[in-house]
Structure formats: C-alpha cells, structure tokens
C-alpha cells in the first residue's frame, strides 16, 4: 500500500513529501495556512505559506515578525518531491484549498469552504483529485442554507423594523470574515433594492481593526463608524451595529439603550441554538458548506476517497460509504464546544459552536 500523501500527526496534518504541515496545532518549521481563523492559523512556526489574497489578514493574526510567503491562486511550486498549489475555498478573504501532487497522485485539503456567493472572497473552485479531505462542520442533511440574498433581505426588514421603533439592531457575527460579509451583503442588498439605509452602520472595534485588508482587496463595503458612546448617541436608536458574539451580554452593549439582537451563523438553522443564544433573531448565514453543498463539492472533485474532518463526521462518513465512496474520519485535535464562544469570540469561525465527539 502506498503511503498517504497527507497524514495525521500530533502536530496536525502533515505532508511528508514536502516536509510541510497544514494548519498545524503546534509550532513547526514549515506551515501552509488555509485561512486566518484562530483554529487554523497559530503562531510560533518558522515559515508560513498562504494565498496571496490571504496575506493581509494572516498578518493581522500572526503579527509583524512572522515569516509569511505567498502564492497566487493556482500557481504550482515544487517542495521536496511534491507539487503544491492553492485554490480558492470561498470561506473568507484569502481562504485556500491545498492541492498536493506526488507522482501523479493528487490530494486536496479543503480547509473551510462554502459554495454560496460571498462578495468578500473568491468563490470555491472544485479541484479534481483522487483524495479529497473536506471539512464537515455541518455534516447532517438538516443543514441546508437559504440563499444569502433572502437572508440579507430578512436582515434589512429586521433592521428597518427596529429603527422605526427606535431600537438599535445589534448583529453578531465573527469579526473576521462573517462581519465583513454581513457589511458587504447588506450594502449590496440596499443598492439592489434601491433602498435608503434605515440608519448608520456602526462596527465594534474588533471588526473595525480588520476592515483595512478588505478595503485593499476591493471588497464593496459600506461607510461605517466605529461604535462608541458618541456614535451610539448620535444614531438615536436607528443604527445597525455589527459586533463579535463575545460582545453580547457585556457592559459594552449598554451604550445603545434599547436593542434587538440578531446572530448570523449556520447554527441558527436549529431553533434550539437560536433560543439558547437568548437573542431575538437568528439569521442562517454560514461560511461553511451545508449538506447539499458537501455532496456537490465531493462530486465535483471526482475523488474516490473522502476524508472528513471538523464537526460531527460520523453520519456523513457512513452516508458516503453507503453511497459507494471510500470515506473515513480524519481526526483533529480541535474540540468544539456546543453553545459557547471562543474567549475573544471574534475569529474562530463556527467550529466553536458544535462538538466533535469522535476526535
């Protein structure tokens, strides 16, 4: 039997032919990073490789001293006996899938990805391969996303209704990726409907800090103000505030007076999650692939072997096997936590809200 091109080690996924780790959990010499969320991009490694489009956000994450090399989309480089290239994953700005080819055999590691349209990043690109290692955060058929436009329409209706009643709309979403997608989506939906914004758009400091890379990437963002006491007062209850989930239930929120809270996440598809949040509204908007999308992506790669990782992989593995694929669970050290947030709540993506029992 041939040695697998990608192996699970206690440092994370390892590519022996290139002597390279993918999103390592512990410091290593050479790491390739799929995207800049905290559970994928950890500091302390010697050299990092990322997609060119993801450099700026990764720099914010890793700091000015990290050695980061970049690659344009699709450009192949040779590392050891492997050919390596990065391809858009559609997850957040600069999020990449990693293609590894050794002696004609091709493996692709998806990182986190989604198929829905997102004005803040390049769309997911299916990469033909023999083995596809896919994320599986939402690996059950109950997870099926509505079209993003319908969701943004709902958000606007909610905002307008709140503004009319003088109640500030607070919309929670992770500060890297989700928050900018919300801003861009709302902006485009307003333009599309030829609608006047119901009020000003304010953003939490953690979101504000991450806007420049998106501006430089040419993402169509609306004009926003930093949320503080002055901008809160001036908006007279008509504002939409985009903030990380960790800001919920803290004194930070008091400056807005009467508020209605909304949370944008794939988990909001489930009423129990919605109610447990204690917020007023849940908007089903995810940066991860849903069940139909997972099957579509798998088919599009043409792969015969499917490794599933992150999330409840058990049912999806069994389902794929019954459908004739050679599927298996790829363990990760990551341990999800139902109903909780990352300590800073800002940038760990949606993994934080569901467990991974099979790890």
């Amino acid at each position, binding site marked *: 039997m041939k040695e697998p091109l990608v192996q699970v080690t206690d440092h994370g996924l390892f590519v022996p032919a290139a002597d390279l780790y993918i999103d390592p959990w512990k410091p290593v010499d050479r790491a390739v990073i799929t995207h800049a969320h905290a559970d994928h991009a950890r500091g302390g490694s010697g050299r990092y490789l990322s997609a060119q489009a993801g450099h700026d956000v990764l720099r914010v994450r890793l700091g000015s001293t990290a050695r980061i090399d970049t690659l344009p989309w699709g450009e192949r480089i040779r590392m050891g006996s492997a050919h390596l290239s990065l391809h858009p994953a559609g997850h957040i700005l600069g999020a990449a899938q990693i293609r590894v080819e050794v002696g004609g055999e091709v493996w692709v590691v998806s990182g986190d990805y989604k198929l829905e349209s997102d004005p803040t990043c390049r769309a997911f690109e299916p990469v033909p391969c023999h083995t596809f290692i896919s994320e599986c955060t939402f690996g*059950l*058929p*109950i997870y099926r996303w509505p079209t993003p436009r319908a969701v943004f329409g709902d958000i606007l209706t909610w905002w307008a209704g709140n503004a009319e009643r003088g109640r500030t709309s607070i919309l929670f979403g992770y500060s890297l990726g989700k928050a900018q997608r919300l801003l861009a989506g709302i902006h485009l939906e307003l333009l599309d409907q030829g609608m006047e914004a119901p009020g000003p758009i304010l953003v939490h400091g953690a979101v504000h800090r991450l806007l420049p890379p998106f501006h430089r990437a040419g993402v169509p963002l609306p004009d926003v103000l930093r949320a503080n006491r002055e901008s809160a007062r001036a908006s007279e209850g008509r504002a939409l505030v985009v903030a990380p989930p960790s800001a919920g239930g803290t004194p930070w929120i008091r400056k807005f007076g009467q508020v209605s809270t909304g949370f944008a996440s794939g988990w909001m598809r*489930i009423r129990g*999650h919605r*109610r*447990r949040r204690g917020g007023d509204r849940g908007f089903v908007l995810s940066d991860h692939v849903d069940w139909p999308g997972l099957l579509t992506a798998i088919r599009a790669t043409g792969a015969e072997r499917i490794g599933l990782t992150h999330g409840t992989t058990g049912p999806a593995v*069994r389902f794929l096997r019954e459908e004739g694929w050679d599927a298996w669970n790829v363990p990760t050290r990551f341990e999800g936590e139902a*109903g909780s947030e990352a300590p800073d709540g800002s940038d760990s993506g949606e993994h934080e809200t569901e467990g991974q029992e099979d790890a």
Partner: protein
Amino acid sequence: MKRFTTLFNALDSTTRTSEKIAALRAYFQDAPPADAAWALWVLSGERLRRSVSTRALREWVARRSHTPLWLVEECYDAVGDLAETLALLLPPPDDGKSMPGPEGAGVARAATHGEKETPPLHKVMEEWIAPLRSLTDQEREERLNRSWDRLRGQELLVFHKLLTGGFRVGVGKKLVTRALAETCGMDPAVLAHRMTGRWDPTAEAFLQITSPDADLPDPGRPYPFFLAHSLDGGPEELPGPPEDWLVEWKWDGIRGQLIHRRGETLIWSRGEELVTPAFPELAEAARVLPSGTVLDGEILAWGPGGPRPFADLQRRLGRKRVGARLRGEVPVIFLAYDLLEAEERDLREQPLQERRRRLSALLEAAGIGSDPAVEPASGVPLALSPPVTVHDWAIAHALRDTARTRGVEGLMIKARASTYGVGRRRGPWWKWKVDPLTLDAVLLYAQRGHGRRASLYTDYTFGVWADGELVPVGKAYSGLTDAEIREVDRWIRRNIVDRFGPVRAVEPELVFELAFDGIRESSRHRSGLALRFPRMARWRQDKPPEEADTLEAARALLRHSRGEP
C-alpha cells in the same frame, strides 16, 4: 395557517413578555373565531390525540427526503425536537433553484399546486390532521404528502408541531389568557375560569368564552387553581404575627378540585385532567355534600392512620377503571383545604378565614369529622385538612423538622385574609418545604437534552459507591446554571468512554451534590432505591470521585426518613 405561522414566528423570535402579548393581541384581533379557538386551545397546552405514530412519520419523511432512516435518527439526536427535525429534512418545494442532493432530492413537485395558499388553521386542524386517525397508514402517508406539497418554510415546523402535539413556544396558559383578556377587555380571572377544564375548540365556544356577558354553560367547569410560592427563608420574614396565618401540612399527594353540582361529581387534578375514574370512592363520597359545592384539596393514598407514599398513589393514576382489588390495596382520601363554591355561589372573593369556617360547618353538617387520622366512622373518605396550631414561629420550625417522618412535604402557610386568586401570586400563600435530602454522587452517563437544551448533554445519570463499584442511583437534569451546563457539556465531549444509542458513558470523575425530596425502596432500580425529584444542588468541583457517597449512606437516609434509627 399563514396568520398562525406569523404569530408563531413572532412569539418565537422574542423573549420579551410585552412583545409576546402584543403579538397575541394582534392575532386575536384579526383571526376569525374558528381559527382563534384552535390557536387558544393549542397555545394553552391542549393537544389532539395523536393521529400518526412518530415512527411512521420518520419513515415517510425519510422516504420523501431520500434520507436513510438511520440518518433521520442522527438528525433528531442533533436537533432534539422531532417536529423541527422533520421540517428541516423535507426538501423545499422547487423554487427554480435546483437543490443538489442525493439522487436529486429536490425534484420539482410544487409546480402542479401553483401558488395556492395553505388553508386557515381550523381547516388544517379539522381537515388535514384530525381525520388522519381513522385512516390506514398508506392513506395517511398519501394525505401527508399532499399537505407537505402545500406547506412552505416555517409552516412546515408549525404543522409538525400541531401534528405531534406539544406546542411549546415560550407561551403558557397564563400569558395567552392575559393577552386574550386584554384583547376583549375582560377580567383575566373570569376568562381563566371559562378556559379551565374542558372546552371544544370551536368558533361557538370561543365566542362564548370571550363574550363579555356570557353565562357559565358548563356545570362541570373547575375554577383555576390558586398556587403558593416557595418560602426560602423562614416564616419570621412574613408580615404580621403568626395569628394572621393559617398553617397546614403540605400533603404529598395530588392537588385536586372536587365539584359536586346538580347530582354530578367531577374531580379535576391541578393539571386540569379529569381524574374522576381513577377515584370512584371519592366521587361517591361527594354525595354527602349539598349540591353546588366545590372543594379544593389533596388526594392522598391513606391509612391506616396516616398518609402513604406518593408512589402508592401513582398506582391509582392514569386508569380508566379502578377495580375493587386496587381500591382495597391503595385506599385514598380527599383532604379539603378550601371551599370555593357553596350553594352554587362563588366564594373565592371571601377571606380564607371565612371560607374555612364555612368549610368546617359544611363537613360537620355532612357528618364528616375534622381529623383525618381518626378513621371516618361513616367510611366516607373525605375530611378537613386539619389546621396546625402555631402561636410562635419557633414551633413551626420544630414541626417542619418532623415532616419527613410524618410523610408530608412540609408546611403550607396562608394569609387568613387572603382571597382565592388565580395561578401563582407572591404574597398570600406560601409553601415551606422540608430541606431536601442530599447525596454526593458521580456522573456516569449523559444524554442530550430537548428544546432549548437540544444538542447539549444535559440529562445525567449519577452513581454512588457499592463494593468498589459505582451503582446508578438517580437521574437529574436541573439545577445547574447555563454556564455550568456548557462547561459540563464540554467536559463530557472530551470524556466519553462508551455509547449506547443516545446515551454516553463518561469517565467517572465529576461529583455533584444531588438534592431530592424523598427516597424509597424500588425493585426497578439496580441500587434498590428510587429518589423523588432529584436535582443537582451543587457541582462539587472540590471533591474527587472516591469521596462520593456510598450506597450504604443512601440506605441510611432511607431508614432515617422512615424514623428508624
């Protein structure tokens, strides 16, 4: 259906009482009475008898959504709510956007039905759901497929909730009553009374209930129960001297209302279930009372000379018929707390002192003694719940400490001047329960919760030590804060050692202090013991599992609670 779904969404998307009331008012203002009747009925907790088995429903949804049945079960496990799981699994009607899925799950099917709106709520209940009961399974599946063709988005969830019963949306009977009372400018107490007991969800009944000057047409209708609040401190904190308060034992039975009007007797439980058939001797006993009498009291398994454990009474419940043998094995008694109606007149606005005076006189006139411990000579299983004389609260403390050996739950303390209100109100009536028993036990198994706690591990089984082994002793799922639940859930996910269906065995490491109201022998449990109302009093993060309690310690509690050394 569309209007009702809008109401459901409004109720589901807010946690503010004022907004829930506003949504309910808006609904009742607009809805035709035939729909409003059903909405009121389901929101106040009534449900149709189950018309399809959940097993069959899962199979049909699996078939329609091209999902293997085992995967439907996995989804249910993750969602924790069957109605919602099924709604999430059903493929959306073809809306031009093709939905990729196994074998093209989202095939076009809605096209033939066009944009037809779903029928109003009463039609869905009366024509879609109610008739299913009398059909074969095959016909049921066909009918449901036709219903599914026409339902959109959130309507699916609402439909499945109606179909499977159990309509909990953070709205209770009290809130619906309040909103409806506001809508039609009525006294909520009057409305609550009219909605108590049984009524049919028809337009006619709805109009009668909400008509400002309708008579009471139903002689069997109970009054809404007045409930007590828990007294957490001691009675010293209550206003006024002890003489202002009536003290009684808190009996450990079923609160009931005995209605004797125009030759007919009905017994309602506090949950507004009609329990007359389970207690024929009580219904018979009521004949000694004058017509137009309504008593509030407690049904207890009794004798000789005192109350028997609640478990005995449970044997009498839920039966359509109770035979002579069971009647002999578990004799029951009705201990009267209060007189709500005499000579067909509502006495609830009179002070408790006066109602009790009349109650004593009425029972005496009927030849019934005032001390239940003295076997009624007449053989009539009806007596006054005797007052406990307390001139000094210190005596109340001492008496409460004897509660467990007496087989009661504690003391009731009621203001003598109090009227008989509706529902739970702070101030006039208090229950002062005996301190719970406790054991430090080790978490052994966990299961996911339901509803708001779906997909978190919140239902736990605990064990105590016996011969170096942990023996399960009880289950509990309440008592922890949300933050603690999340933390324990996180720990469980990392410490699963085995699985049995939905149950996860975990490393025996976490210790919790379990509090419970009673303990008894039980052949159904491996430990040989059963706990009453166990809950988690504390997470003993300071205690290693080796220091948890033993089965012997649990047995000692049992002996002690029986007054044995």
